[in-house]
């Protein structure tokens, strides 16, 4: 049981790392790992302390694998392609819009959070890591929340001003399945079935 977990996790992670290298995404991947590292470490420690070292390592690796899958997906799939794909399979437009808009505005919010952090640090408020930073969290969270609400209002007004909500499809891009998509879907299904067989046989 444990062996199959190890084999499956290490194989999956190995394949994912090869994909990262093949797609020349090693630099953003390292940056992503810096952020995910803390969560993986926490997950590993909790599982280790609650159960044993093996469970801890497996739990950490599992979270890392899931993280890398999401990283690869969002690095290789622009939000508008995802939105168009979801529309094609029947999702309503407001749903796909909310999904893709949230993805697109994450970098904007990160930039705003950095500006706020700089503004507060320049006033002598120590918004840094550690316990002291947590004590001063309202200085970061307050302006960020207010700005996000305001931003959402402005975005809604801008969208309405540009005709959001008018019925009928108005996209130039029409997604189609290409040979590479068929290959990826087939390989993914084979991997999924193999994994299920490993698990239940």
């Amino acid at each position, binding site marked *: 049981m444990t062996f199959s977990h190890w084999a499956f996790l290490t194989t999956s992670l190995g394949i994912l790392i090869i994909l990262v290298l093949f797609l020349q995404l090693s630099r953003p991947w390292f940056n992503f790992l810096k952020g995910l590292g803390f969560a993986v470490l926490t997950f590993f420690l909790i599982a280790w302390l609650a159960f044993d070292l093996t469970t801890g390592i497996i739990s950490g690796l599992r979270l890392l694998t899931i993280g890398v899958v999401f990283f690869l997906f969002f690095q290789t799939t622009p939000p508008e392609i995802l939105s168009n794909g979801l529309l094609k399979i029947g999702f309503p437009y407001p749903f796909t819009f909310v999904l893709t808009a949230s993805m697109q505005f994450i970098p904007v919010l990160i930039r*705003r959070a950095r500006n706020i952090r*700089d*503004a507060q*640090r*320049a*006033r*002598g408020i*120590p918004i840094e890591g550690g316990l002291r930073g947590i004590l001063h969290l309202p200085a970061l969270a307050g302006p960020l929340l207010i*700005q996000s609400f305001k931003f959402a209002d402005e975005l809604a007004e801008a969208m309405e001003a540009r005709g959001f909500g008018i019925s009928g499809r108005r996209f130039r891009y029409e997604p189609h399945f290409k040979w590479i998509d068929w290959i990826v879907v087939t390989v993914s299904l084979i991997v999924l079935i193999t994994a299920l067989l490993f698990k239940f046989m």
Partner: protein
Amino acid sequence: MDRTIIFHQGRSVADGPPHQVLAGDISNFGINHPPLLRLFRDFGLKTMVFDVEKAIEELKAQNILTPFYHHLLRQSSDSFNTLTETTHPVVELENLWFNYDGTPLLCGIDLKLQRGESVALLGRNGAGKTTLIKHLNGLIKPQKGRVRIFGSDTRKKTVSELSRHVSLVWQNPNDQIFRPTVREEVLTGPKIFHSYDPLWCDGLFNRFGLHPFLNRSPFALSEGQKKRVSFAAALSIKPDLIVLDEPTAGQDEPFRRELTSYLHQLREEGQTIIFVTHDLEFAAEHADRWLILSDGKIIADGPPDTVMEQTTAMSKAGLRPTQRFQLIQAMKRFMEGKN
């Protein structure tokens, strides 16, 4: 422009051709007259002029070009301080380099600012102005070279230690507001640094017209009022160096006037001020020294009129000389031609 409409308190108060609308008393509506018109009004002339050529023609027609020229020159020599270099500069940048993601943003900047100087930092967007000012309170540490503030190397000081002496007023006041009342927002700095001076802070509340709002939420204020709050908050710790990022951006004339008078007072008290701006009229009014930053380098450094004469640097930074400077140059050319 064919037509100008002025809105004030929810209704249109003036509507007509620009020369007709601007001829009236528009300062009550928070709008300033165009620069040339202001210069003419200061000299007691009622003629409507909007461009330099027309102004020259008008001055020639009234035969007052020479007295007007000397009046303008006198104004320029009155407004600027000449500071001698001291051994202890307030700010000292030594071969400062900074790269972001492989793109050089600052390339070997050398700069010294003396106590009491008022400096305008000019340049196109992306020229490195914000990166430079973030070095002054340690938000960015030099990758190569050295930054000294009052003799201390910023690499050896924390942002909190530096921000006790260097106050930065950001372009967007919403980035800093988080306290439930205006009073608490302004007094955040003095509480952190244990430097609360009731008399000084009360003076700031008065100066920025904050008394009626002291117990109100800063979030409920207008953008102009929030800007006042952020100025008062920055000055509440009695900083030794004030750095202003685009202080006049999006602000109306009354706020500009208040800021003008406050900066004037601070300069008279010997305060060192650095401001980033795209507003050359404001920069010419308040700075003893202009610095033009382009592609991470200082390409012009000197008194405003000297910098405006450097046409290559000005055009590289996408800047046009002020109308006052253009007028003086045009008058000079005319008088030289006449002689």
